[in-house]
């Protein structure tokens, strides 16, 4: 059983005029970081909201940890950080975690033990008695993450968790997510920061106009088969005629030299010939594109198809 499963999930707004989601079938496995990508208005937040019962699907169904999302009991083992969340500003950090923990069904004794630990984890230990109206956006975001963890959930839904957080804070959040994954938690992430997503995610799905257009492992998306980046000092332009002789395609892209080979044997043959010519090889690295490149490629391809 997958922790998150959706079946033909569809959502229309304004009496059917606005299509937010269309027939989304998604399975998210356990103990991983899963990221949902898509341009603005693709339906990412709507999908997350439907899974959490914040809004209702027009059609289809979904299950969280085996429980139908129509039941509020499906939220028992779930933590959620909403995009642009707002806590009551008359509370301090400790009180926010206390009341939201109580609403999650955590008892007072556990909360008193857990709150200081979580505040420490999100680097707010010195701010626990401070009213949150004095907090910066980044601090509120970190408090939001602590709030999402207050019931020690099995699944964590985070909508733009690093929004407003500085680079150091982002790295801390990233480390925290990886720690949580290692603890066996499933993290469902919505983020526009593709470089962040690429660093932490195991699996991604891309939504466009409410439709699921791609889903798979990150490494599958960013690795380019049989393409290698080659680093050779000095006159690299000599490489072009050399590669032509070997029937190897050589491209220069963003200051990098990329070779396309048929297979590993072909690559080794190329290396042997280079060495025969006493050329110094600094590095041969399997070529990878960034998740951002892949994302733009997929979105543009789909736009091309739809045009």
């Amino acid at each position, binding site marked *: 059983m997958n922790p998150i499963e959706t079946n033909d999930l569809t959502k229309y707004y304004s009496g059917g005029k606005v299509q937010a989601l269309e027939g989304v079938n998604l399975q998210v496995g356990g103990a991983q970081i899963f990221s949902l990508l898509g341009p603005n208005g693709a339906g990412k937040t709507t999908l997350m909201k439907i899974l959490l019962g914040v809004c*209702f699907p027009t059609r289809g169904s979904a299950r969280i940890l085996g429980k139908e999302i129509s039941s509020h009991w499906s939220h028992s083992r779930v933590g959620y950080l909403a995009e642009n969340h707002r806590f009551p500003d*008359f509370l301090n950090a400790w009180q926010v975690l206390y009341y*939201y923990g109580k*609403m999650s069904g955590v008892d007072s004794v556990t909360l008193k033990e857990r709150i200081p630990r979580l505040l420490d984890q999100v680097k707010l230990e010195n701010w626990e008695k401070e009213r949150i109206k004095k907090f910066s956006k980044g601090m509120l975001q970190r408090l939001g993450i602590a709030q999402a963890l207050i019931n020690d959930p099995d699944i964590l839904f985070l909508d733009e968790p690093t929004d407003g957080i500085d680079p150091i804070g982002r790295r801390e959040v990233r480390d925290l997510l990886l720690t949580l994954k290692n603890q066996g938690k499933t993290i469902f992430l919505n983020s526009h920061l593709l470089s962040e997503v690429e660093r932490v995610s195991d699996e991604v799905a891309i939504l466009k106009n409410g439709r699921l257009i791609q889903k798979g492992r990150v490494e599958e998306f960013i690795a380019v088969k049989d393409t290698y980046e080659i680093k050779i000092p000095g006159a690299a332009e000599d490489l072009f005629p050399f590669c032509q002789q070997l029937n190897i395609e050589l491209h220069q892209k963003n200051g990098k030299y990329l070779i396309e080979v048929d297979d590993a044997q072909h690559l080794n043959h190329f290396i042997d010939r280079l060495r025969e010519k006493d050329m110094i090889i600094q590095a041969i690295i399997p070529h990878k594109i960034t998740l951002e490149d892949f994302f733009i490629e997929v979105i543009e391809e789909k736009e091309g198809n739809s045009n």
Partner: protein
Amino acid sequence: MKLLAIIQLTFRESWAKKTFVAFFGLSTLVCLLFIFALNLDIVDGLKSSVSLFGKEIPELVEIRELVLGIESALAVFLFTGGLFMSLFATSGLITSFLRSGNIELIISKPLSRFQILLGRYLGAVSIVAFNVFYLVLFSWLILSIKTGIWNWGFLLSGIMIVLTFAILYALMTFLSVVINSAAFSLMITYAILFFSPLLLQRDRIYALLSGKIYGVLLDGLYYFLPKTTELADITRLLVQGSAVTSWMALWSSILFGIFMFGVSSYIFSRKNF
């Protein structure tokens, strides 16, 4: 426990917005007035003199009548002024709860939407109940200790006031859920509150209008809407220890409150955020 957390959070919000403090301060002021303004000298178990705000009360006025009079006045003041203030002070509690960014987090908790709305509703009713009973109980104690007349009926006025508030707040909850505007919800609730005496006089209004339909319409409104004027009368009669001839106004108003909260819960449970 989860429901209690919402009620506690509502209390805290009221405290932070100074609503609770204002209520509590005003109630304390009224109690202090009774402590210091009402002077009563009892000699050998009989009153020798009674003064209120330093003014001697004539011997003709029986002490029991005086106590009932003060308690009735206080009950009526609380019923009208207290309800008016309570509705004003709690008008924003539902809409602030429904604010985008806040409600999503609450809904994602393992609570049913009915529990969420009920928790907020009970939180608001509890704030008013706490303050009303604080004032009623302490002023009753002060008056009873000073005069030796223990009018238990006065305590019932607290129940009636809180019950009336709960009925009107159910309407305000409905309006807040539907239109999500505290000011508009308050205006409509005030209109219903002050519409009640008019509807009580519907026979006179009907006499001015032609057409049977107006009579049916006015009767329909009268029986459907909360009957605050009659509820105030019932409160006064309970304080004075007089017999209440009809409880229809009470039970029909309670039914209105239950209906309004039921509809609010239904709409809230189907609402997209």
